[in-house]
């Protein structure tokens, strides 16, 4: 198990390097120019100077090498310094955004909480709803509950968030005025009233995102439980005289969770991507929103860094999913 984990960890290094190269090369092809936002009144010589100040002129491999060093060597040092008060990174060049001329990572760190709150909460809510729904629909296959559950999850599956988002926004924020239209990132929860405000502003984005999660996971759960309900060991459990509740909730669910847990783990990075739309629609200033804006203003270092952070998340959660699989299923032995 340990060898397996270490092996996978080490394998992920070339994978990540390769991904970073792909992302980097892709971005280098960009025809856009970070200067496009500068007003037309600014003369070309000035623009040229600004461009040079951004380090645009250097050869590709130098830029890539610099970026690698900055991302893999200097940024971790900064994090280390932050936590332990050391000064390893003192005076070293970090990954700098072309938009705000400051370290990209600082802003990423600033924004991650928003994303985690909304996206994470949506995921948790989605998982908490979907698992019981999945179990019950499988247990009562083709019952009214199952049929309607299937229908609702199908809808959740099919209706895109960029449709539900604005629609719900208009209904609940503009027409009814129950919730704010825009997410306030500065809001601090300190008492009941402010908690209520926080709840109100989170509910729409969370529900829109959770709808998708619920739909997907409950379908997986249903299929998985159905698969297991037909297994021989369930019959054995019943022949012992166990009650249905124990048979289903202990024997079946435990087995059904194995594939579903990995689906859940694998889904986490995907929803960061999916959150881009939700964040844009509801004005949540998370990393998805950051990504879109960086892309629109040709802020290549930020785009690069964020794309790469997404890649790291995916690789990481893939690894977690694999390891979890081994932990949950005694039959899997990695050596």
């Amino acid at each position, binding site marked *: 198990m340990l060898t397996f984990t270490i092996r996978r960890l080490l394998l992920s290094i070339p994978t990540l390097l390769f991904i970073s190269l792909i992302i980097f090369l*892709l971005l280098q092809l*960009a025809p856009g120019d970070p200067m496009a936002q500068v007003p037309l009144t600014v003369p070309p010589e000035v623009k040229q100077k600004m461009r040079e100040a951004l380090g645009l002129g250097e050869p590709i491999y130098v830029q890539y090498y610099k970026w690698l060093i900055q991302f893999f060597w200097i940024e971790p040092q900064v994090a280390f310094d932050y936590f332990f008060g050391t000064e390893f990174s003192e005076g070293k060049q970090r990954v700098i955004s072309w938009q705000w001329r400051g370290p990209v990572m600082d802003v990423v760190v600033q924004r991650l909480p928003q994303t985690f709150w909304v996206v994470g909460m949506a995921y948790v809510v989605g998982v908490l709803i979907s698992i019981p729904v999945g179990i019950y629909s499988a247990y009562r296959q083709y019952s009214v509950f199952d049929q309607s559950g299937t229908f609702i999850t*199908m809808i959740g599956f099919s209706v895109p968030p960029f449709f539900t988002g604005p629609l719900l926004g208009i209904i609940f924020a503009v027409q009814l005025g129950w919730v704010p239209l825009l997410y306030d990132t500065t809001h601090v929860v300190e008492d009941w009233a402010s908690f209520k405000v926080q709840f109100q502003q989170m509910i729409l984005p969370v529900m829109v995102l959770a709808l998708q999660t619920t739909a997907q996971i409950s379908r997986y759960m249903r299929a998985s439980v159905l698969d297991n309900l*037909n297994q021989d060991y369930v019959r054995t459990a019943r022949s012992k005289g166990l009650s249905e509740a124990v048979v289903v909730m202990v024997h079946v669910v435990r087995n059904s969770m194995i594939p579903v847990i990995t689906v859940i783990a694998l889904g986490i990075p995907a929803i960061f991507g999916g959150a881009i739309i939700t964040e844009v629609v509801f004005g949540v200033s998370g990393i998805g929103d950051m*990504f879109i804006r960086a892309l629109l203003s040709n802020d290549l270092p930020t785009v690069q860094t964020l794309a790469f952070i997404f890649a790291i998340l995916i690789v990481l959660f893939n690894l977690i999913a694999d390891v979890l699989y081994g932990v949950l299923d005694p039959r899997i032995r990695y050596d």
Partner: protein
Amino acid sequence: MTETAPDDHFEALRDIEPPKEPRSQWADVWSQFKKHKGALFGGGFLVFITLFVLIGPYIWRVDPQALPKGREMLTLRDVRPIFVALWDFDAKVMWSRPLGTDNLGRDILANIIAGGRASMAVGWAAMVLSLVIGTGIGVMSGYFRKLDFWLMRFTDLVLSLPILPLLLVAVVLFRQPLRSNFGPEMGMFILIVGVIAITSWMQTARIVRGEILALKEREFILAARSIGTSNYKIITRHLLPNVISPIMVSATLGLATAIITESALSFLGFGFPSDFPTWGKLLSDAVPRMTEFPERVLFPGIAISLTVLGVNYLGDGLRDALDPRIRGR
């Protein structure tokens, strides 16, 4: 069962011949499929919407891009759908514009049809392309052991790419060159179809590979090899027909994601040029006027949702119908 008392000893041991006429598996699949109401609806709706967007322009012969001449625009724009007159007697409605017009006086029905054409074309093309890539890679790596390691590493790698972000990046990057080479519409079509396909074949590849690996161990493949069937024939005659079910299921999933992805790109403003409507684009263009003209958001939104819903239900039904375990029941 019409079983006479088995006094003839041999009769007692005879196999009961199947009473039915020979039926291919597909007949069974169809009869199972028919029972899935949702799938029938889904498939039906998909056919309907496809015909709607294909034939629509020949029936509803209004040019989606046509603007009213000159000052007529002021009277012909912002027409409401005809049914609004049911509750709002003052609404500006016109029989010649059953679903109303947009802020420039373009006909909404014609736009929905044209938008549907684009969305469906992208969906189908991307789905087919991604299936071809996915099946190809899946079959190669499942069947040829030597390729397996590298192809699967490659698949894993692509799977680790952050898809939506890269999709956006790719659209931004390649939009211009492709548009200048193939024209704004065709270039964008190639780009979006290509980008969606290139980023969505991996699941198909994995599933197909898994199926092929399992099938390869089945004795009929061994049997085929032992009777001297060539690799090519094993793949085309024995393997591919047997992986058709997972491929069809991932086809439906692929169609649904492709439609949604295209709409999402258009919604975020990374899609087709503005004079080339797609459902996603119509939707996002209409969002600012949502309170005043909710229909402009609802029509494309519902069109997308229903199509995807239909496709998903179709996939669900296909999965049930194609799964021999379920079909046996």
